[in-house]
């Protein structure tokens, strides 16, 4: 710490005085002027006087650091950073130093907590100040959805040729101030525009001297014998058996000959496959997975159950880029070795499980002819496409003029949709000029139009949601006014409101109906907004909200971040991971569709399961890959979000469950609080010597908590996580904890605990009941998360009143989800920047 200028909180410059005024006004908003400074005198001042000032004041400045005159303004980045340092030193026990009288742990903890809370508020305020920018970049997912609606083509944003992954903040993937643009992003946007436009405006293929309207089509059919490859093909053909050859796929077996090969043009392609799927008794169904290796993309996966003599046809369509596509077609289920010498038939043709096996080969079926392992048996598969309508594409019809003179009209239409608002004459002029100069330099009209389209797709107004234009929205046909309105609390324009609503619920641009409402000037009226929300939630695109919001709110991106140890959790695979997230998403969707209460998220007597997850939970069998509502009994030990495998595993670290992280997650996602960060010098949990009895992680943590510096905070965090100790790192129910180190039997799980307010519980079920008692806390937290998602910014002290109002309205509506969404959308908060 160097050289602190002696500027007490009243002695600063004009600017900091202004900030102070702002701070005071904010404090007034949250409950009484001087609240923050007043508390300071009570909560921190005595501690400082007793323990700190003697070495860090005007007379003596150890370490060149003064604490007595440190500004109490926690909104200022500079002083906040110093207070953070003070907090860290106290919380780690480093200060006061050993030679000095030691403060009581509880006393120090109180100061640390008070400082942490102020710093958090200050951080949010500073973030918000930076954040009320007018430019919220589209996420790559939103970019792709918008392209689809604007140009009618699919953009595979996650492929190696796609866009870079976006940054997140506390789980949220769409915060304006966090999403950034570097030159390499711009290069990727340019390339993405090239790709998208090539498909939107396909070049005519010249066939037999005539230009054909449609690109050439593609088809490939592979029979069993082609897929397998046998040594005696000629012989089989002579016997008339060639067409009867099937391919039996053992667990873990891939067919490498199933690739479509060289795809002529980008577009939608269909794959069809005829196959049987044999499920062993009490075992898992075989799992078909079609994975494009070079695109690193799962094209399709599903369980297949169909008798050997009654194969079914599975088909799906997928978007593929032009060029070679390399596909792995697999039966992704765990099972025994499938090497030819023990498992599959090798080069020998296979016709039926009744064929008989070579002496050294493992049996396929038991004596009753029932399969012993999950098999797929494939007859044939075919690829075809591109699937396209006759004649010109959507983009050609909408945006391609017949002659140069028509360019202005078409470009106006494109720019208005792409920028999601009316455009000025100048904006269109620039585009028209580009088309003209391209034509002049010898390009055809379509190619010249593509250049203008590319400029539109790389323009700031397309890539960003621009908010805050206020009255400056261009009037069609008139020159643009310059710049944006500077007022921070400015109301959104009708157009901005339409976009906010559309990206909130659909993750894409507004549709014609929303544009029409904006054009009519009535969108901001509560009745109109409510009607729009209801309409939008009925639209299939609302599924994106049901997927994107829980992913952000519940931090579902972290599922699988530390993939579980294969040896400890052999059952864990990519499909299970997908199903885990699927349960949580389907659960949210169900609450949304049925307009259920938020209470269901905390405790429910139902959940959404598919076959794989029911098997994972050891619950009664559920058929198929689709998630369906399943009633739960108490002995199932499930109910509410907190028993979802996704939630239980996202806090784990790959080898073990982590109660503290679970507790932290509950605080953040359910109670809306952030615990202070741990001090930097925490000692690690010591391993248990091999001779001592095995200890649960809880026992080890308890030892840890004897350190009184830790105990004060952990008493608040840990019970929230320990309540779920009956679930392992991948969310399975257990009564014993499997422990590697130490001697003797595995210890029993103890999931009991006591909340900081004294309420006790014996395990997860009772804990869930306690959470329901605190429903109002969750209600407030949920509404804040929803607002962050909708407004693409962090909530601050300035928003507290508005949020409290929404929470009250939610309570009046029995915490029903659709009501909450409607109330938020029609609130002042939603309609302002």
């Amino acid at each position, binding site marked *: 710490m160097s050289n602190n200028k002696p500027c007490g909180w009243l002695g600063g410059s004009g600017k900091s005085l202004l900030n102070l005024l702002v701070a005071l006004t904010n404090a007034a908003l949250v409950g009484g002027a001087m609240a923050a400074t007043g508390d300071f005198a009570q909560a921190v001042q005595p501690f400082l006087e007793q323990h700190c000032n003697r070495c860090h004041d005007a007379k003596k400045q150890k370490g060149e650091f003064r604490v007595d005159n440190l500004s109490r303004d926690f909104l200022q980045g500079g002083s906040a950073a110093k207070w953070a340092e003070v907090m860290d030193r106290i919380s780690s026990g480093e200060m006061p130093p050993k030679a000095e009288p030691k403060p009581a742990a509880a006393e120090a903890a109180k100061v640390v907590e008070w400082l942490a809370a102020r710093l958090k508020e200050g*951080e949010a305020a500073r*973030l918000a*100040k*930076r954040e009320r*920018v*007018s430019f919220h970049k589209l996420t790559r997912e939103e970019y792709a959805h918008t392209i689809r609606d604007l140009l009618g083509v699919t953009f595979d944003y996650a492929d*190696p040729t796609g866009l*870079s*992954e*976006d*940054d997140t*903040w*506390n789980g949220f993937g769409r915060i*304006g*101030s966090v999403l*950034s*643009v*570097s*030159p390499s*992003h*711009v*290069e*990727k946007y*340019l390339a993405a525009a090239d790709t998208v436009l090539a498909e939107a405006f396909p070049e005519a293929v010249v066939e037999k001297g005539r230009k054909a309207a449609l690109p050439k089509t593609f088809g490939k059919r592979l029979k069993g014998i082609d897929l397998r490859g046998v040594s005696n093909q000629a012989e089989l053909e002579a016997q008339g058996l060639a067409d009867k050859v099937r391919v039996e796929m053992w667990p873990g077996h891939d067919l490498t000959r199933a690739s479509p090969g060289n795809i002529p043009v980008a577009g939608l392609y269909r794959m069809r496959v005829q196959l049987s799927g044999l499920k062993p008794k009490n075992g898992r169904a075989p799992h078909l997975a079609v994975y494009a*290796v070079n695109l690193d993309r799962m094209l399709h996966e599903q369980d297949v159950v169909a008798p050997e003599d009654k194969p079914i046809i599975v088909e799906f369509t997928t978007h593929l880029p032009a060029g070679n596509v390399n596909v792995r077609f697999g039966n992704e289920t765990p099972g025994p070795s499938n090497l030819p010498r023990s498992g599959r038939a090798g080069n020998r043709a296979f016709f039926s499980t009744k064929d008989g096996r070579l002496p050294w080969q493992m049996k396929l079926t038991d004596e009753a002819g029932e399969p012993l392992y999950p098999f797929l048996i494939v007859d044939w598969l075919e690829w075809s496409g591109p699937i396209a309508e006759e004649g010109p594409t959507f983009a050609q019809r909408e945006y391609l003029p017949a002659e140069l003179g028509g360019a202005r009209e078409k470009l106006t239409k494109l720019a208005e949709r792409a920028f999601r608002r009316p455009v000025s004459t100048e*904006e269109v002029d*620039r*585009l028209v000029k580009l088309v003209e*100069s*391209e034509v002049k*330099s010898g390009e055809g009209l379509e190619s010249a139009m593509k*250049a203008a389209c*590319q*400029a539109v797709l*790389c*323009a*700031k*107004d397309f*890539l*960003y949601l621009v908010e805050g234009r206020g009255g400056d929205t261009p009037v069609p046909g008139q020159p*643009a006014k*310059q*710049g*944006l309105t*500077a007022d921070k609390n400015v109301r959104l324009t009708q157009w901005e409101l339409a976009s906010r609503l559309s990206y909130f619920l659909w993750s894409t641009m507004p549709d014609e109906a929303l544009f029409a409402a904006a054009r009519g000037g009535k969108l901001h009226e509560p009745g109109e907004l409510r009607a729009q929300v209801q309409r939008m939630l009925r639209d299939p695109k609302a599924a994106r909200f049901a997927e994107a919001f829980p992913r952000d709110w519940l931090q579902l991106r972290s599922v699988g*971040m*530390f993939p579980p*140890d294969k040896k400890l959790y052999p059952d864990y695979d990519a499909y299970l991971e997908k199903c885990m997230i699927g349960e949580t998403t389907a659960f949210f969707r169900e609450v949304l569709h049925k307009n259920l209460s938020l209470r269901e998220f905390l405790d429910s007597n139902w959940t959404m399961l598919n076959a794989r997850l029911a098997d994972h939970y050891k619950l009664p069998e559920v058929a198929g890959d689709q998630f369906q509502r399943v009633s739960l009994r108490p002995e199932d030990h499930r109910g509410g979000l907190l028993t979802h495998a996704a939630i239980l595993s996202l806090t784990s*670290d*790959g*080898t073990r469950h982590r109660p503290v992280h679970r507790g932290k997650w509950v605080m953040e996602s359910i109670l809306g609080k*952030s615990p202070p*960060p741990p001090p*930097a*010098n925490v*000692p*690690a*949990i010591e*391993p248990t010597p091999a001779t001592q009895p095995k200890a649960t992680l809880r026992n080890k943590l308890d030892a840890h908590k004897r350190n009184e510096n830790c105990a004060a905070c952990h008493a608040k965090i840990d019970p929230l996580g320990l309540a779920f100790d009956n679930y392992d790192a991948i969310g399975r129910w257990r009564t014993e904890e499997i422990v590697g*180190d130490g001697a003797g039997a595995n210890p029993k799980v103890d999931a009991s605990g006591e909340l900081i307010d004294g309420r006790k519980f014996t395990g997860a079920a009772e804990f869930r009941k306690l959470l329901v008692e605190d429903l109002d806390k969750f209600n407030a937290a949920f509404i804040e998360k929803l607002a962050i998602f909708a407004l693409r910014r962090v909530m601050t002290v300035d928003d507290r009143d508005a949020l409290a109002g929404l929470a009250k309205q939610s309570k009046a509506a029995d915490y029903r989800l659709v009501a909450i969404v409607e109330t938020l959308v029609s609130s002042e908060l939603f309609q302002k920047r």
Partner: protein
Amino acid sequence: MSNVLSQKWLLSRRHMLRGLGATIALPLLDCMSPLRAAAIAAKPRRSVFIYIPNGVNVLTWQITKAGRDYELSTPLKSLEKHRENITPISGLHHPNGIGQAHECQKVWLTAAKVSQEGGAFRNTVSADQLMAEVTAPLTRFSSLELSISRGTTTLAWSRDGVPLPAEDNPKAVFTRLFGAEPGGVDVQRRRLNRRHSVLDLVLEDAKQLRRGIGGEDRMKLDEYLTAVREVEVRTERLDSWLNIPKPVVDGKTAANLTRNVSKTEAGDYYRTMYDLMVLALRTDMTRVITYMSGSESHGLAIPEIGIPQTRHELSHHNGDPEQMARLSRSDAFITEQFTYFLDQLQAVKDGEENLLDRTMVLFGSGMAYGHSHGNANLPTILAGGKSLGLKHGQHIDYNLPKLQQYDLANAAGHYAVCSRPVNSNARLTNLLLTMLHKMEVNTEKFADSLGPVSEVV
């Protein structure tokens, strides 16, 4: 201009490269200013940064003796043959990094302070990007960002503190570097002209708006404008490179580097990436490379030597001897791959010198003792760059003057050394500053640096 073309090194390099799988074409100097021509005449200076995720098993990694007659520790044994090309350094740290968990990879080359609570964390510029600013006019690609995962898992950060997305797929990188310009030069030139017009329009449009808005709100717009402008500069640069054919890589080398290599074959994957880096350097496609060989959440398991866990799992070994032994083996394996990279660089001769002599390589981690996130005494090895004036051959140790000796039998004691800096002046930024100077970046300070590392210059 012809005097530059007749520079002996250029000719001999071309001659040499032809035999080694690539022919390099000489830059056409018409498009370059005289100043640049002079810079081209100077011999290339290169830097590579390679990241080790999750720290190491510090109990076995630590070299215990300082000076020239030190003994390499077991995981580092493969580097023995490179003794004269390397300097292991103990005791370095980032003051801002102390106490960081999974964020330390973000600040390894930037030394910025990361809030553990996330927030709108803004990084600062990374050392490699300052170097790239100097080398950018001289090579087709100003820098190359590689990583174990595609996207923002990257070591390189722009001046705006924006992550520069990295590539993880050798084939994609190869195609970007050496792929033919589709349609030939004329088509490409036309394409670039067109890109130029598009960017012009986009910029003009954004500038109009910028005039009207004030301070805070301008930040995001400026970030966008800077990015677009930079792409415009790159487009011009690409245009001037158009007449210079890309090096032709022989079929066998190309086929090897464009295979679909699975990350489950860790050794094959690493060696392919390293081969690609050597090729990029020796064909002078770029002079600055960052490679996050593993990230804190994605450090490869190495099934081929019986290690099924990721490095993150291993690093949280909880004192289990078996896990710790595996972590050591994983450390040794990663070091062997690094040794392979040095071997390959050394094998490319350039007259009296070799490629390694003109390439500085920093190999290290932002974490030391992963189990409880201790990040002092960071694993650090500086290699190569002898022709740039680096002096190697000793183990520099900033801990020993105070510690006198290491007591690795006392695990807790050594973990403390790896969690709290012994010498608070021993900053990693000093080393980065040293490298910046060798790359002719004109700066007296980098982040919190105190001065260059005198022992290696």
